[in-house]
């Protein structure tokens, strides 16, 4: 702090009260955390309970503010980055959010959406109390009700449905889960197949492409250690794990990695790329197969990996039953199969130059096992055959042997923690055909966009329909069909919208129930952001602050703004009331594991998980904390610093008991392959039926799509061959995510809306000229 030395004139004028005296108070300075000139990122955790700093707004007055620093987890996207909330002890309000340095995924850093959480907390338009509709559904009239009324009313409806065995009529439709396994457990406890998601307009296509290779349905790229990074779409601004991935992509690049980005548009990510491959939408797989072709023809593949870890015998037999089953013959078949995917062909399909495709292929071949790649939504979503993009992208990982390696691409399951809950209810033994219709046997995740159409076709109805952070009226392709279905009380008996902010779907609800933002709720999250494995604890920070101050808080809404609650406690209370006497068999799953016969508390739920998280009790004990106390204090825990090559894990003695190894090295037990024999050692392999990377997918063939059994290019519905230029048919890419916004949920974050407040249509200038459209024009 530099003290101001007033001039003689100023001192006199202040003394004479001609001007305000700015020098009367002697400031007692706060101690510095560091030596002068040496700066640190965060106050040390031992000071978090009692942290005093200067209030920025007080300027040179250097007003002191005393905070409790309480960690939580960001909920503005699915990355689950760590946040530190600064709770002002005087006002018991959050002053600001910063990053949590103890979070292994985000490492103390955030994107714009992290600090903007404060806007959402303080949003003057937010819903503060449970609301019940007055008048017709969608009429826009609401009245405030108590949580008690809400719980009793909904519980009664669900109870009746369950008693009448209308188990498919209780549905929970989620946009943004933000938790690990919590809801699956609730729905299983109710005995309903009631989970619906948004995934089929999002990542389901790409997930399918990955799943049929290796069981795990998402990639976990180790960008930070890669030599070549291949991204489909804009992972430096809108990736599913935006901030954690963006950190590691750039780290990889600073360590010398090259970056290729396949993105139709000039995104920020495309701008950062060494190779921007602006592919025609839907043509991505053609480019990827051209790269595969080069890797195969130029023998840039990883022979050892292919030999050991690809189901090449089955593949070869299926592709060409007439040749001897040798690895060389498999390669020969591959050469033949992909010979047509020349870079020139790919160029004609995609517009990406053959020269660039060759260069990228060479670079990928050179990177070998240090080749990280990622496709989440983007080309995989909304395109006919979009799933083949991920299938073909992962083919490159397989060819280079970069699956599970340092700097490679890992199966998601290796890096994502599965919490062990208490009293796991059994899985339901039936399925809901409104979600998984028989016509789509390979649908990966629920065919959620068909729900309103099925309701209109009278294929079923819903008694109780929860939408949670889910706004299909706005974000789904045909919002008006959703409005029709949601407005029809015969189709949807009761619609409950769980949301922190008003949205278009909540407008058609019977109850709008305010649920907390990231600092107002409990959740456990774990995501495959990198090669490690972590868990992060989302906690209601004002409740935690109140607890630390010795206040007894029973429910989170007591400390949140208004009566904003949180889902976890809501579901506990609701489940308890659905089964008041325990006769439905639900209540037993909500009994405290610590207090016999009593209802579980939210603290006990997490206490149990943390006590059963590998390594956490020991880590906590080092600081004389219980596992729950540790998570309350640090907000996150690194379960594993790095998880590579899990497929090489040895099968245990127990696993091997009664197992046999066939002539092809498959370790079989009870009719299932449980591992792979490599050089005399039994390895667990991958999560696929063959425990290998499945180049040939018997699953796909068995369900009737033998033409898609091996990685292939499917021409999409918007392939130029399928467009009629005479009818002015053109390609519109409707999905785009900005680094600053998250679907319809960040609209009320003023600092984010300030940066991004307009939604233009981008068009190439040549198209504009063709149609006589210039910048700023309105188009329909």
């Amino acid at each position, binding site marked *: 702090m530099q003290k101001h030395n007033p001039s003689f004139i100023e001192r006199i004028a202040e003394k004479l009260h001609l001007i305000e005296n700015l020098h009367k108070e002697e400031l007692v300075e706060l101690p510095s955390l560091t030596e002068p000139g040496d700066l640190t990122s965060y106050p040390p955790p031992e000071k978090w309970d009692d942290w005093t700093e200067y209030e920025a707004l007080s300027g040179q*007055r250097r007003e002191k503010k005393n905070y409790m620093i309480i960690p939580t987890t960001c909920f503005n996207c699915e990355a689950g980055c760590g946040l530190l909330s600064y709770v002002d002890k005087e006002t018991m309000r959050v002053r600001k959010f910063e990053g949590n340095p103890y979070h292994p995924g985000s490492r103390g850093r955030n994107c714009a959406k992290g600090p903007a959480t404060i806007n959402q907390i303080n949003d003057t338009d937010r819903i503060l109390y449970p609301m019940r509709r007055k008048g017709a559904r969608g009429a826009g009239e609401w009245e405030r009700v108590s949580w008690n009324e809400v719980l009793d009313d909904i519980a009664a409806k669900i109870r009746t449905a369950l008693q009448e065995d209308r188990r498919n009529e209780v549905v929970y439709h989620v946009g943004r889960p933000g938790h690990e396994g919590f809801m699956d457990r609730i729905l299983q406890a109710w005995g309903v197949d009631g989970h619906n998601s948004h995934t089929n307009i999002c990542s389901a296509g790409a997930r399918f492409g990955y799943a049929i290779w290796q069981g795990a349905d998402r990639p976990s790229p180790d960008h930070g250690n890669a030599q070549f990074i291949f991204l489909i779409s804009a992972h430096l601004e809108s990736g599913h794990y935006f901030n954690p991935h963006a950190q590691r992509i750039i780290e990889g690049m600073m360590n010398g990695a090259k970056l290729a980005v396949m993105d139709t548009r000039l995104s920020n990510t495309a*701008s950062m790329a060494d190779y921007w491959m602006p592919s025609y939408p839907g043509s991505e797989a053609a480019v990827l197969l051209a790269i595969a072709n080069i890797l195969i023809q130029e023998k840039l593949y990883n022979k050892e990996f292919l030999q050991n870890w690809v189901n090449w015998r089955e593949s070869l037999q299926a592709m060409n039953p007439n040749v001897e089953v040798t690895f060389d013959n498999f390669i020969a078949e591959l050469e033949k199969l992909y010979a047509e995917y020349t870079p020139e062909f790919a160029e004609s399909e995609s517009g990406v130059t053959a020269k660039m495709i060759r260069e990228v292929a060479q670079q990928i071949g050179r990177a070998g096992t240090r080749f990280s790649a990622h496709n989440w939504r983007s080309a995989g979503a909304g395109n006919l055959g979009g799933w083949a993009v991920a299938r073909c992208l992962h083919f490159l990982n397989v060819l280079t042997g970069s699956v599970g390696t340092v700097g490679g691409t890992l199966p998601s399951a290796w890096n994502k923690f599965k919490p062990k809950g208490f009293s796991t209810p059994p899985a339901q033994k039936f399925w809901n055909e409104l979600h998984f219709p028989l016509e789509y046997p390979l649908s990966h995740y629920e065919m959620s966009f068909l729900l309103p159409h099925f309701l209109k076709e009278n294929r079923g109805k819903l008694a109780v329909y929860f939408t949670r952070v889910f706004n299909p009226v706005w974000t789904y392709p045909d919002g008006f069909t959703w409005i029709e279905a949601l407005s029809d009380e015969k189709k949807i008996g009761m619609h409950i919208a769980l949301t922190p902010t008003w949205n278009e779907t909540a407008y058609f609800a019977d109850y709008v129930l305010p649920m907390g933002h990231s600092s107002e709720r409990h959740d456990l999250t774990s995501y495959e952001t990198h090669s490690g494995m972590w868990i992060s604890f989302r906690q209601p920070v004002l409740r935690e602050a109140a607890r630390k101050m010795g206040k007894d808080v029973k429910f989170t809404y007591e400390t949140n703004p208004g009566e904003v609650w949180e889902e976890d406690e809501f579901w506990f209370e609701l489940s308890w009331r659905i089964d008041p006497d325990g006769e439905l068999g639900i209540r037993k799953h909500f009994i405290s594991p610590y207090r016999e016969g009593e209802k579980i508390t939210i603290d006990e739920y997490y206490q149990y998980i943390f006590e059963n998280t590998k390594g956490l009790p020991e880590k906590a004990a080092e600081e004389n904390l219980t596992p729950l106390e540790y998570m309350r204090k640090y907000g996150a825990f690194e379960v594993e610093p790095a998880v590579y090559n899990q497929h090489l894990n040895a099968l245990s003695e127990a696993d091997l008991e009664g197992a046999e190894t066939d002539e092809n090295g498959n370790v079989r037990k009870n009719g299932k392959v449980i591992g792979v024999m490599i050089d005399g050692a039994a390895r667990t392999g991958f999560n696929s039926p063959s425990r290998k990377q499945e180049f040939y997918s018997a699953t796909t063939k068995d369900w009737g799509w033998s033409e898609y059994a091996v990685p292939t290019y499917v021409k999409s519905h918007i392939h130029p061959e399928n467009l009629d230029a005479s009818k002015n048919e053109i390609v519109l890419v409707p999905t785009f995510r900005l680094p600053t916004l998250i679907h319809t949920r960040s609209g009320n974050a003023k600092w984010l809306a300030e940066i991004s407040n307009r939604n233009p249509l981008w068009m190439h200038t040549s198209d504009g000229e063709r149609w006589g459209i210039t910048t700023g024009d309105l188009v329909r």
Partner: protein
Amino acid sequence: MNYGFIIDNRKCIGCHACTVACKAEHEVPVGVNRTWVKYIEKGTFPDTRRLFSVMRCNHCADAPCVEICPVTALFTRNDGIVDFDSRRCIGCKACTQACPYDALYMHPDEHTAAKCNYCSHRTDIGLEPACVNVCPEHAIISGDMDNPLTEISQLLAREVVQVRKPEKGTKPKLFYIDGDNASLDPTGTNPETDYMWSSQSSGVGHFAKYAENRIVNSPLKEEVKKQNFVQIEPRKKARRVYDAPNKGVLWGWEVSAYIWTKAIAAGAFLIPVLGGYFMEIPAPLKQLGAVIAFVFLAITGVLLIMDLGRPDRFLNVLFRPQFKSWLSRGAYIITIYGGLLTLWLLASFLNFGNLLKYIEPLGIIFALLSAVYTAFLFAQAKGRDFWQSPMLGLHMLIHSLMAGFAIFLTASLFVQMSVSFLMALTFFTIITLIFHLISLAIELTTTHTTDDAHATVKMITGGEFSRQFWLGMILAGNTLPLLLLLAGQIWAFALAGALILTGLYFAEHIWVKAPQRIPLS
């Protein structure tokens, strides 16, 4: 100790996290920014890319904002941080003109200036600035550049870095690794009204009140439209695709008007009193001059205070002076000149003839200083290249002489004047007008060496100010009076005077406003 910043463009992904973290730390109002990310695009598909540049205060070693601040509200700390104390700020907006980097904004509610202060409230307790902490890519590096062991020192030693506008001599301490010239140079791209994701192009900070009007009333209020920057011919084929909203022309009519009234206040006293040394000037004429000077000086004071964001703090200029600032010096000059005028008037009306002898030389000196000090103030406004002209002092001196002549020419209609006085008046007015035209020609054609100044000249002589310049200033303000005076008709003198005064107003208006239309970032 010497704090600086590095923006590492090898790593910056343009995510705006720094912008929002800064907003959260400082609760920066909507519309204005202490740090923001500018996007530009270059090239043609598919050989095109977007480039990001984080913009903010450069914490200059020779900070022009500190030098121009009249009340030490802006100051350079011992650790090199350029900080500010908004309690001292009077809202004169001089810093926004002095900063070549567009770092300062006017707080829409407080009406005081603000900018990035390196989170000095955090560094004081050993914490990194908020933007450094949040940056996902560690693309913003803070630290002590005097200590060779810090990351910033090592990067500066190893990497090629750029700064914005080094020619300004401000010694900026914000360094860009892989800085891009078309991004860092404000004239490399044109400011637009609509960007990729945003459409607020103006009406922020000082002008937030108009933006509010805009929402309530018409879609495009003239006030807001007028703040838009001029379009210039970019030297590179680059497009600006995202930027913070334009803060507008912050010195408006009050400033042009005060220069005009000040010229009159100086000239009206100077002409008869100076003239008195060479010829017989009757006391009433001198008194008339002094009274007009006094009135216009009072109006000058009112305009000066009116222009302040915080008129309630106008006394700070005198009582918290920063004597390097020509605004502070100017305030004292005007005050002393006002005092001398008062004394002169008292002495003159109370017939203390002897006293006048002592007051007049001092009065002449302070009238001259009042006339020209604004040129030094404008020279301190380093952000505006056009004002850096060495001709500006002369220009203002001539203007006050012209104003003085014009006042008496106009007054000739109402007041009895001797023929010899009128002849001298006409003669010297003609000489001054000719001299003025010559000096104008020199100022507009030869002395400006930078792009910004050239663009300003173009705007004046051939652009949006050309009508005001050619018709208002050159024709009405100089040529017609010249012709009228040469015609030698007594009736025409008053008209010539009025025309000169009108022309002068156009001149001040153009000179104040045009340079502010050039974007600083």
